[in-house]
């Protein structure tokens, strides 16, 4: 209103107000021109000139009132997280409390995953500078053995996750960055193609975002089985596979509990992690990559995840996981260790239990009360907090790297004898499921997820409906007099809110 008045009247209003270009002779007093005078326009709009400053003041007050109001609401309103209903209590006594079932009878082909001079480089493009490239992993030659838990440790920024993603061929650049991999990846000593790698490797990301919160564990695994398992398997076989995994992963006691999400509590973090792992195990991968499977979990759940991994390793799979921090007893469960420093150089690679003697031989001994993993990580990390310490630790790390570089011997690296038959490696990339099958499954799953989430249903409809009601109260019923022309036209613009609501539901 203030803006309109300012436009048409200004501060010093003449009796007729301003005059807008009038088609007939430009005279404010001419009745033909009445239509074009400011005072007429203001009058039809139903505004009073007195509101010029008043309107400004009131809008000003509104800004403050709303700000204060939001502050008060924020202070008063408690944050509450609802606990998701337990669908029906599973038979927990039958499967014990989440211990993985070991079935030594089952064996999978053993697969040695080797890296030969594998290096990783990230390139970032800028509009005005030339392309910058940064090496995140220096040429690495290591092998990861089947039937063992291979652990990659290192401080943040040492390229652990990038290495895993590169192994699973899941490195993706953004708009301005791209990754470049050098060197070769071998399977049982034979250079592997992307198709081969993709068909035998599964990757479990660090977070469990890929789970639908309103599905139960059993449903999650059944749908995943339907979507991920090849069309050659029958529906019953797929369901059976999902059921097998529930027992194998020790999820029997919570199979009928909801997974839960950010605002809705469901199964615990460790159980969620095991569900994520189970989904990746569905397709029976020979090599399983896990990004920080134990971080963010408490001791018991972390060890339950490690138990699962141990059981999988016992089946002959190659387990490769990264770890940032872990307890001493978890450290003891590791078979092979690859230590990376910041910048992606190897500080140690070999048997996990031999890492202490190795560092001991270099004059670094671990105190009795020091956490093994912490001790090792501290050794290879440059302390950036204090100047003198930084120089000291930097020279120590460089020393360690040099020692490793020089003492690199064949026994641990790349020359691991390959006892397995090469023919085990085949390009077994199976055909994707037919469109209609996956489509119905994806549709059913999302529908189930949505139908159990009343918030989503409300979110998807309430905005349009609410807005429509407010507008109806405001406009209705539209009259047929001169003032209504304006209202009626503007009412067409009420279509704006629906589109904005659709945006909010989309985002």
């Amino acid at each position, binding site marked *: 209103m203030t803006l309109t008045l300012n436009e048409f009247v200004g501060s010093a209003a003449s009796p007729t107000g301003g005059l807008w270009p009038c088609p007939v002779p430009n005279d404010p007093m001419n009745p033909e021109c009445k239509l074009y005078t400011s005072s007429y326009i203001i009058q039809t709009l139903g505004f009073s000139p007195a509101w010029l400053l008043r309107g400004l003041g009131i809008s000003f007050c509104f800004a403050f009132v709303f700000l204060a109001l939001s502050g008060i609401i924020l202070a008063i309103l408690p944050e509450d997280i609802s606990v998701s209903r337990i669908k029906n209590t599973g038979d927990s006594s039958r499967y014990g409390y989440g211990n993985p079932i070991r079935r030594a009878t089952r064996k999978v082909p053993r697969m040695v995953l080797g890296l030969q001079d594998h290096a990783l480089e990230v390139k970032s493009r800028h509009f005005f500078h030339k392309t910058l490239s940064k090496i995140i992993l220096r040429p690495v030659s290591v092998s990861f053995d089947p039937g063992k838990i291979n652990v990659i440790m290192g401080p943040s920024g040492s390229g652990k996750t990038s290495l895993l993603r590169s192994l699973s061929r899941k490195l993706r650049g953004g708009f301005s960055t791209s990754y470049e991999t050098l060197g070769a990846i071998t399977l049982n000593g034979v250079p592997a193609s*992307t198709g081969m790698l993709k068909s035998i490797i599964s990757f479990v990301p660090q977070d469990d975002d890929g789970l639908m919160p309103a599905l139960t564990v059993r449903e999650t695994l059944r749908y995943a089985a339907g979507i991920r398992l090849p069309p050659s398997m029958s529906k019953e076989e797929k369901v059976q596979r999902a059921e097998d995994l529930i027992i194998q992963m020790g999820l029997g006691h919570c199979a009928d509990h909801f997974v839960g999400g950010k605002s809705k509590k469901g199964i615990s973090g460790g159980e969620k992690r095991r569900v994520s792992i189970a989904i990746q195990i569905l397709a029976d991968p020979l090599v399983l990559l896990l990004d920080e499977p134990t971080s963010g979990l408490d001791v018991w759940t972390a060890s339950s995840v490690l138990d699962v991994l141990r059981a999988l390793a016992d089946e002959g799979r190659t387990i490769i996981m990264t770890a940032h921090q872990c307890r001493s007893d978890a450290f003891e469960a590791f078979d092979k260790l690859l230590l990376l420093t910041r910048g992606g150089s190897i500080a140690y690679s070999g048997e996990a239990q031999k890492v202490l003697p190795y560092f001991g031989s270099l004059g670094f001994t671990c105190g009795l009360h020091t956490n093994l993993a912490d001790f090792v990580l501290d050794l290879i990390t440059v302390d950036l907090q204090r100047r003198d310490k930084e120089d000291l630790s930097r020279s120590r790390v460089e020393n360690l790297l040099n020692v490793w570089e020089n003492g690199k011997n064949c026994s641990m690296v790349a020359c691991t004898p390959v006892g397995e038959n090469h023919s085990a490696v085949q390009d077994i990339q199976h055909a994707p499921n037919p469109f209609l099958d996956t489509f119905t499954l994806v549709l059913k799953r999302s529908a189930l997820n949505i139908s159990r989430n009343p918030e989503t249903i409300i979110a*998807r409809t309430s905005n349009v409906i609410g807005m429509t009601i407010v507008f109806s109260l405001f406009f209705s019923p539209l009259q047929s007099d001169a003032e209504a022309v304006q209202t009626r036209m503007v009412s067409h613009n009420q279509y704006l809110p629906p589109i904005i609501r659709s945006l*909010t539901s989309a*985002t």
Partner: protein
Amino acid sequence: MLQNVAVYPTERDIFYREFSDNCYSVSTFLASYTLLELPFNLLSSLIFGVLAAFAINLQRSAFMFAIATINCFCIVSCGESLGIVFCTLFDEHVGLSMHASSALFSVGATMAGIVTLKLPPVLHATNYISPFKYLVANVAVYSLRGRVFTCASEQEIDGRCPVSSGEDVLRLYNLDVDPRWNLVVLAVLAVFYRAVAMAVVKVSRIKWKWRLGNEILWGSRKSRTLGMV
């Protein structure tokens, strides 16, 4: 509004993950998303149609109800498509995509033909792909044709109201056009926007293949480059 933020990004994250595991295609995901969105969209459009035609009195007829419903349905669908596009482009920043798209919508709505009547050539050209333009051009015509406006005596000029019929209003706003085609174009745009959304999601998922092509094209400087496929 906060709980609305929960719909697309969560589904998208699950899809991204399963897509990277080679489970199903972009079209499978978006087809199922669209199909699930339909009933909600239809329900809210019907309610909108009832209120717009009968309560707000755009015109109290079953015909106007149908027109309002179809328009609302199309525009909401366009909005959803644009939301998908922005959520794909700024996949880490929900807030940014919301701001970018709401800014775009405000501009589109301002250019629709009621608030601004004359546009500079560039904006006028871009307006041809704006659903708001077609929306206003058909709803306004359908609701205003044949309507008679009255006015108070002091507003009369030469003994008659400056605006006395719906057609007068339409002429005033330059909207005296054939509404049918505008409605058809709006429906086509709704489909087109969804197709664009699908294309954007597809492109965002195959970027790395293109990059590989680029590498081959320009020749790789390194001796052995394992591509990103």
